[in-house]
């Protein structure tokens, strides 16, 4: 059962830092593991992209979900069936920023023994919310990694905490991330069809994100952390002078360990869709195979003999037997 394997993984990802923190291995937890995980993330990401970029694309296979460019009086749909570079860019933007293709999601139900199809926007909504709040949280975390704090982090924190609920203020993005991650996880567990195709590598990232958000909220609202100490630690990483300040708590080490696990996981599995979406031939090619020749990079170089060359060679013989020729 993938879900139990994933839960076991998560329990270990929580218990290991708790154990290591109580054993006093702060250097391992606070410096060695996070820095190594970051390196694996960056190099792994670049490596995966390079491997993809080197793969041949034998055909143009863009998804064509709109009218392609045709005769001048037929209205073309540039964003759904791009015919050029700008159309591709527009479609890519809609996909990455607004999850356009998920918006088209449909569901199938049996109604009186027959399948009926309907719209469903849940996955689009919660999927988008998940990614958007993740991004907001990452940008807000820059306050721990910049001095003076980058203005964007301040602005985002002000907007994110605009309702001023509690002290310290509750961030709306935290609520959204928790709700969206919980939805995405429950969807895999509750819907039998989705459960059937879900693997441990589908559950683990979601569970890790839930652990990260949970421990983050714990540090902010319940088991308070000394943020000055955390920033001192982060300063040590980015200035290459590792320091281990006093006052880091076990919850913080759980947070950091789960983040490290996610960073290592990233280039190894499906999370690479972050880079992969830009490299998908179904998304990044223009539908122009009727106007432009797509050369298959796998083709061996072929020596071709065109009709012009043929006629040049045999013109006299052709004329002699009365065959028509293009050039006299």
């Amino acid at each position, binding site marked *: 059962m993938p879900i139990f394997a994933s839960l076991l993984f998560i329990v270990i990802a929580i218990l290991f830092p708790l154990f290591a923190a109580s054993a006093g291995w702060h250097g391992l937890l606070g410096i060695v593991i996070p820095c190594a995980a970051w390196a694996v993330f960056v190099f792994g990401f*670049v490596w995966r992209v390079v491997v993809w970029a080197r793969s041949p694309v034998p055909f143009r296979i863009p998804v064509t979900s709109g009218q392609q460019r045709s005769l001048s009086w037929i209205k073309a749909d540039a964003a759904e069936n791009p015919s050029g570079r700008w159309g591709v860019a527009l479609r890519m933007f809609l996909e990455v920023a607004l999850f356009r293709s998920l918006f088209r999601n449909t569901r199938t139900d049996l109604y009186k023994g027959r399948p009926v199809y309907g719209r469903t926007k849940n996955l689009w909504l919660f999927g988008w919310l998940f990614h958007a709040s993740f991004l907001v949280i990452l940008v807000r975390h820059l306050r721990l990694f*910049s001095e*003076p704090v980058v203005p964007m982090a*301040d602005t985002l924190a002000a907007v994110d905490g605009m309702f001023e609920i509690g*002290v310290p203020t509750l961030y709306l993005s935290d609520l959204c991330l928790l709700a969206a991650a919980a939805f995405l996880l429950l969807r895999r567990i509750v819907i039998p069809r989705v459960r059937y195709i879900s693997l441990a590598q589908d559950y683990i990232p979601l569970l890790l994100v839930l652990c990260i958000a949970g421990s983050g909220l714990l540090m902010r609202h319940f088991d308070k*952390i000394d*943020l000055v100490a955390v920033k001192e630690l982060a300063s040590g990483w980015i*200035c290459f002078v590792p320091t281990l300040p006093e006052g880091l708590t076990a919850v913080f080490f759980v947070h950091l360990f789960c983040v490290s696990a996610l960073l290592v996981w990233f280039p190894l599995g499906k999370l690479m869709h972050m880079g992969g979406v830009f490299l998908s031939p179904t998304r990044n090619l223009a539908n122009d195979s009727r106007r432009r020749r797509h*050369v298959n990079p796998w083709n061996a170089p072929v020596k071709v003999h065109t009709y012009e060359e043929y006629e040049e060679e045999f013109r006299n013989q052709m004329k002699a037997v009365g065959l028509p020729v293009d050039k006299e």
Partner: protein
Amino acid sequence: MKGRRGGLIAIGIGLAVFLALATYPFWHAAGKAMPVPELDLETPAIRALPARLCVAPTAEMKTRHMQILDEWRTEVVRNGRRTFETPDGRRFDRSLTRTCMQCHSNKERFCDRCHDYAGVKPKCWDCHIVPETPSGEASAAVAGKGTLK
């Protein structure tokens, strides 16, 4: 081939953007350490104390002073209980301006330094006033600096 060159350029730009974002903190810091703010504890009120103690142990103040303030506010505004007694028997008025800011009368060199460093902007001062610091005191206070550690 033209298409292939275009693809290589696109990959190059994409990877450059990724690397720039993933290493942003490094080149933002550019090797300059992010020094921990120096907190100034030398105010007249603190110097006059028999023992240099806050309303709770320092470690607790560092991490949860905002929660203490929140508890104080609830106690005063909802329950009308204004007097706070520490376990060692010292009594304080539960008040932001009249208690915290009495001892920590140098907001810019105490609360603000720390909050700027941590990227926190408490909204309390929209309504609560900050007691004015006499200008003479500021220079006197520079002499002895308390640090965070």
